[in-house]
């Protein structure tokens, strides 16, 4: 039940946040309700005050006359029986006043001597308990002064219902009997009925007004929100690539202006995108043409160079060396060309992922196998640390292989013959491969430029992998294409760690990083001498 209530509240919240129309109408209704209530309350209060005051003034003068008449009776008591005089006084009062009020005479408190004249009252006074404050004010006011008070007159049925009333009182001196309180109570229920009616009319009128406002605001908001909604839907379509979508332009109002400027924006977007698409197409075409035109002669050169290279032992030393140089430089030229073409394909946006389920551990092992000759030449030991079981990950194996190959090649090149460790780990949303070397490391200034094109850590350094300076830039693009990234930790003398993190599903954002950077051993070795920065034995044992 409680859950239902919450769900209901939630859907209400969604409606509130999701619809400008709902919000506007609701706010309009809320504010106009407050305004109508305030106005109604003010009207009711001022009507009541006015009605009450005019009635009271009328009753005050009436009561004054009545009290005077009663006093007259009591001043001419003569020798008559007091009760009879009292009866006459009541008669006199009743003849003075317009409507039939309740009348009563009570002996004022605080008098000694016997009560010669009885307390007498007629009408509703039997049910009214006059407050102490009222009687005291009568006594304090002294004879001849008229006091009044608003009171509630309980209904005859005695069920707690009451009607409003006004009580007037004055002290009357009765010869031989002392002072008496003369009380006249008027029933104001007719006034209350009038007020109730006014209030009822106000409430009904106010409610009708609010409903009307709600309808009007709904219609008005619809008029405004409708076109905005259409604009939103259209821009949604534009964003989805349907560039020919436009808004209808009608009239000269602000909405038509919106539609016109929206369409102008869409026109310019469309032409820009077309232009870019055309540029990209031209670029792709160019890349493809250059690729073919350059590769055709290069293929012959390569074949010729290799044939010469294979026979270099038959040549005199100078010619043999020439064949070697030719061979090496052709290879370098070829790699450079391939990297350049790849880079320009990225720049032209002409690359696509070809994903397949891939076991990253096996992929890393394959790459390690392929760079092993180079590693052996350098005396570098290659290790893989891959804890846990692995499912296959949906990646473009060719690109990931290229990344790992590149990172491993760099690590061997700059690893000073110390071991290179590849960590592979994953979690629910991401996979990561980190390549750790214990070589020269990079200065912070170098670190900033490490992914820049054609940048090399040390241009004079002997490059065994024939680096073109584009490797990391391409790797970064390859990772980016998967929605992943490559980042790096490095310190001079303590080696480097390049970490590739990929989402399990290409294009899903990176939500977590299964491997830490800087690597754990970098923290352990914080105090160690750089020369001792060798991987610990536990790493070797953790080998998968």
């Amino acid at each position: 039940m409680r859950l239902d209530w919450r769900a209901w509240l939630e859907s209400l919240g969604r409606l509130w946040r999701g619809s400008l129309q709902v919000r506007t109408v609701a706010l309009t209704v809320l504010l106009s309700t407050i305004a109508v209530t305030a106005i109604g309350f003010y009207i009711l209060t001022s009507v009541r005050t006015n009605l009450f005051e005019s009635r009271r003034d009328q009753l005050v003068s009436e009561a004054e006359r009545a009290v005077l008449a009663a006093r007259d009776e009591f001043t001419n008591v003569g020798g008559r029986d007091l009760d009879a005089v009292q009866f006459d006084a009541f008669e006199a009062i009743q003849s003075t006043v317009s409507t039939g009020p309740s009348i009563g005479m009570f002996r004022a408190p605080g008098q000694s001597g016997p009560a010669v004249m009885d307390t007498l009252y007629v009408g509703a006074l039997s049910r009214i308990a006059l407050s102490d404050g009222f009687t005291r004010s009568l006594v304090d006011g002294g004879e001849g002064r008229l006091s009044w008070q608003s009171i509630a007159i309980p209904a005859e049925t005695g069920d707690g219902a009451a009607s409003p009333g006004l009580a007037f009182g004055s002290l009357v001196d009765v010869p031989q009997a002392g002072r008496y309180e003369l009380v006249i109570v008027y029933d104001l229920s007719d006034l209350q009925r009038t007020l109730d009616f006014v209030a009822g009319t106000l409430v009904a009128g106010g409610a009708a007004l609010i409903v009307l406002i709600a309808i009007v605001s709904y219609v008005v908001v619809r008029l405004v929100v409708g076109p905005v909604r259409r604009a939103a839907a259209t821009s949604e379509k534009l964003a989805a690539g349907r560039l020919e979508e436009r808004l209808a332009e009608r009239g000269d109002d602000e909405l038509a202006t919106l539609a016109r400027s929206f369409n102008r924006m869409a026109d310019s977007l469309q032409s820009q995108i077309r232009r870019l698409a055309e540029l990209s197409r031209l670029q792709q075409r160019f890349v493809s043409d250059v690729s073919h035109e350059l590769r055709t002669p290069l293929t012959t050169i390569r074949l010729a160079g290799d044939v010469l290279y294979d026979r270099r032992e038959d040549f005199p030393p100078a010619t043999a060396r020439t064949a070697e140089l030719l061979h090496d430089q052709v290879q370098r030229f070829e790699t450079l060309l391939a990297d350049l073409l790849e880079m320009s394909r990225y720049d032209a946006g002409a690359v696509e992922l070809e994903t397949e389920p891939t076991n990253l551990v096996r992929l890393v092992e394959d790459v390690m196998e392929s760079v092993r000759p180079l590693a052996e030449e350098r005396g570098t030991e290659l290790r893989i640390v891959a804890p846990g079981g692995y499912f296959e990950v949906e990646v473009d194996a060719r690109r990931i292989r290229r990344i790992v190959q590149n990172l491993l090649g760099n690590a061997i090149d700059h690893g000073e013959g110390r071991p290179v460790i590849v960590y592979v780990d994953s979690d629910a949303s991401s996979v990561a491969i980190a390549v750790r070397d214990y070589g020269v490391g990079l200065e912070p200034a170098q670190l900033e430029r490490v992914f820049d094109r054609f940048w090399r850590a040390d241009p004079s350094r002997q490059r065994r992998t024939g680096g073109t300076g584009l490797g990391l830039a391409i790797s970064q693009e390859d990772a980016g294409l998967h929605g992943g990234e490559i980042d790096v930790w490095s310190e001079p003398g303590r080696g480097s760690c390049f970490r590739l993190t990929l989402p399990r599903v290409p294009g899903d954002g990176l939500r977590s990083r299964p491997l830490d950077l800087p690597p754990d051993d970098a923290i352990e070795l914080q105090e160690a001498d750089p020369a001792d920065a060798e991987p610990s034995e536990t790493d070797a044992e953790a080998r998968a």
Partner: protein
Amino acid sequence: MSARILVVDDDPAISEMIGIVLSGEGFDPSFAADGPAALERFREGRPDLVLLDLMLPGIDGIEVCRSIRAESGVPIIMLTAKGDPADVVDGLESGADDYVVKPFNPKELVARIRARLRPALPETGETIGIGDLVIDVVGHEVRRGGTRIPLTPLEFQLLLALAAKPNQVFTREMLLEQVWGYHYKADTRLVNVHVQRLRAKVELDPDSPRIVTTVRGVGYRAGAVG
């Protein structure tokens, strides 16, 4: 007798250079510079293997490949200059067995040629049954009932590799090594395309294969999964 190899490339320098390399390795090369000439040379020379450039004037390489494949199962290795991946797939789908990307080095080319000319067949008995197919290993024939199913040597080799170990699941990499003779080569499209081509020939319903089945996330195996 040395193997005859038809080299089809529109660039005379490449053709000549490839010729030098092939002669040096003991092959007998012949040349064609465009599509029609290639088909003509193929028909009159019946070479043991065709090296085919995909970018040709006249009929393009894909078309030539299709025509050759229509009349023969001769091994075809494409020479492709483009790095565009779609080209490789187009070439493989039109019937090429393997491909070499320009520029290549002579050893690589020769290794690819040798792998196609002398396929390493698994050691098995004379005939193997797989599903309702019978593979005659010695006669290089596959029959369903009394009907002979024509397979190219590569397709035969692929089917035989799978059928020789019916309980084993082959990864694409294993098949690349066993059938194509590659080590550490990542291009699994070779396997994918040829499995599709093989299925189109041997399966009764290529959409629900029963002879060569896919083991999701791993690779392929012969016969039903289970």
